Structure formats: C-alpha cells, structure tokens
C-alpha cells in the first residue's frame, strides 16, 4: 500500500513510473553517529553486567538492547525513510511474535 493505493489511484501507475526507487542518500555523518551510539550502548550493557551482575545488569540489557535494535532498524535499515506501510508491517510481525511469546508464558508462569 504505497500511500497512493489507499485512494485507488492505481498500483499500475506506481509500477510503471513511481516504482523506481530514488531516495536522496542519507549523509554519511548520520550513519557514523548511529554507529558510535551503538558501540556506546553496547559498552553500557557490558559495563552494567560486569559491575552490577544480576537484576540491574539484566534490566539495563533489557532496556538498552531494544534501543540498539531500533537504531539499526530506523537508520541502517531505512525504516525511518520508508512509507508507513513498511513500519506497520514490521510492527505487526514483531507484535505477533511478542504476543505469541506472552501467551506461551500463561502456561509457564501461572498455575
């Protein structure tokens, strides 16, 4: 559903003309910054697990790791620059996985 489709303006038109990709390239500096952030966040998790083993370390990892994933998804994988459809599809895939995992735990963490 490239935005135009919802209005029925025609996928074929998109396939003929608008189907060609032409993003303006993202500046290199942005990518380097994301990379630095990723390395830094990795260090944070490692440090937390070394200095505060146990609950705190795990807690930090549980917060930081999804942030790292989001950085990769948004910038490296371009989701930030894609149409809404791609983000929606991604969220539903991950959402279903989370849901399934959650439901599984109705068995394992309850009586």
């Amino acid at each position: 559903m490239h935005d135009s489709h919802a209005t029925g303006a025609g996928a074929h038109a998109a396939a003929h003309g608008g189907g060609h990709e032409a993003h303006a390239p993202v500046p290199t500096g942005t990518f380097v910054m994301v990379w630095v952030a990723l390395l830094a966040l990795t260090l944070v998790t490692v440090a937390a697990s070394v200095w505060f083993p146990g609950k705190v370390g795990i807690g930090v990892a549980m917060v930081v790791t999804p942030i790292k994933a989001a950085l990769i998804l948004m910038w490296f994988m371009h989701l930030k620059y894609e149409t809404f459809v791609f983000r929606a599809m991604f969220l539903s895939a991950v959402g279903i996985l989370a849901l399934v995992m959650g439901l599984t735990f109705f068995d394992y963490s309850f009586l």
Partner: protein
Amino acid sequence: MRAEGATLGTPAGGHAAAHHEHRDDIGSKTGMWLFLFTELLLFGGLFIVYAVYRHKFGAEFHEAAHELNKVMGVTNTFVLLTSSLTMVLSVGALQRARVAESLRWLGATFGLACCFLVIKYFEWSAKHHHGIWPGGEHLHSLPPGEGMFFNLYFMMTGLHGIHVLVGMGVMGAIAARIRSGHVSASRYAALEFTGLYWHLVDLVWIFLLPLFYLTN
C-alpha cells in the same frame, strides 16, 4: 507490470520481459521485508525456547554462562556493528555513483564478517576442547539446565553463523554484479537488499549477546 525477483538483478524472464522493461523496486522491497519477517520468526521460535528454559533453569543458565568468553562475545559485537556501518556506507557510495568506493566498503564488510567467523571459530573450538559440544560427552554429564544452555547456545549462534556465511556469499555475488555494471547507481536495489539482510543478521546478534554472554 511485474517486479523483479528480489535480488535477481535481471529483468524477470518469461513472456512479458521483452517488450519493455518493467521495474517495481517498491514491490521488490516489500518482498524483501516479508522475507526478513520469516527470518525474524525463525529465530523467534528459538527465542521462545530460550525464554522458557531460562524461566525454568534460571540458576543453571547463570552458572553455565560463566563458561562463555565475554571478551570474545563483545569483540564480535563490535565487529558486526562496524560491518553494518561499512555496509550502509557501501550502499551510500553506490547511490552517489562512486563504484570503487562502494566496492571498497563492501570488501570491508566482507572482511569483518570473516573476522567474526574466525573469532567464533576460536570460541567454539575452545568449547569443543572441553567436550562441550552438542552430542559431546561432557555436555551430557552436565546438569540438565546447563546442558540446555549450551545446546541453545550452539543452536542459536550456529544458525546465526550460517546466516553470516550466506550473507558473505551474497556479498561476493553482488560485488561481481557491481563490477559488471548490472548493479549501479540507477539500479542499486540488489545491494540495498543485501544490506537489509546483513543488518538483520546484526540485529539478531545484538539480542544473542545479552542472552548468552551477559547473563551471569
């Protein structure tokens, strides 16, 4: 009116190809993302297994995680994250029609992937040395929870390793196509998709790090 096969750079074969070239990059990209979802769910199944056994054998998992080499795990994380950077830089260079630079970054990515596998090799052989290996003697003699940890470790990093290998193969093929001009500034989708795949491999690793190396 048809899109191209995801990473196949040639116009779709068959009857309609000849009269004029159709391209639907967005369509191909949709296909590529759908493929990534299947990969995600493939690992997702293993994450469920991990979650359940971690819940069941918390203490054993912590105990077993001591065996893993944190330094190697973290180094490998840096290696992979950096390879993700070189990958996007390669795509960016191609978009700007700097073919040689793009190839250089791609080469760097390939090199980092090798590096990752070499480190992994040392890690695994160290375990193997101690008899910790799926089906190995020592592993069977461990308490069930610890055995579970190591089997999961080998399954998940093993599956991930296979993905790294596949990624390297694809990079090689794409490099050849860039050189021959099939993949270029005006049709760079194939390289972009290789990148997407590579970032997914990275993404999975980001989760494997805390699950295995940082659990103690």
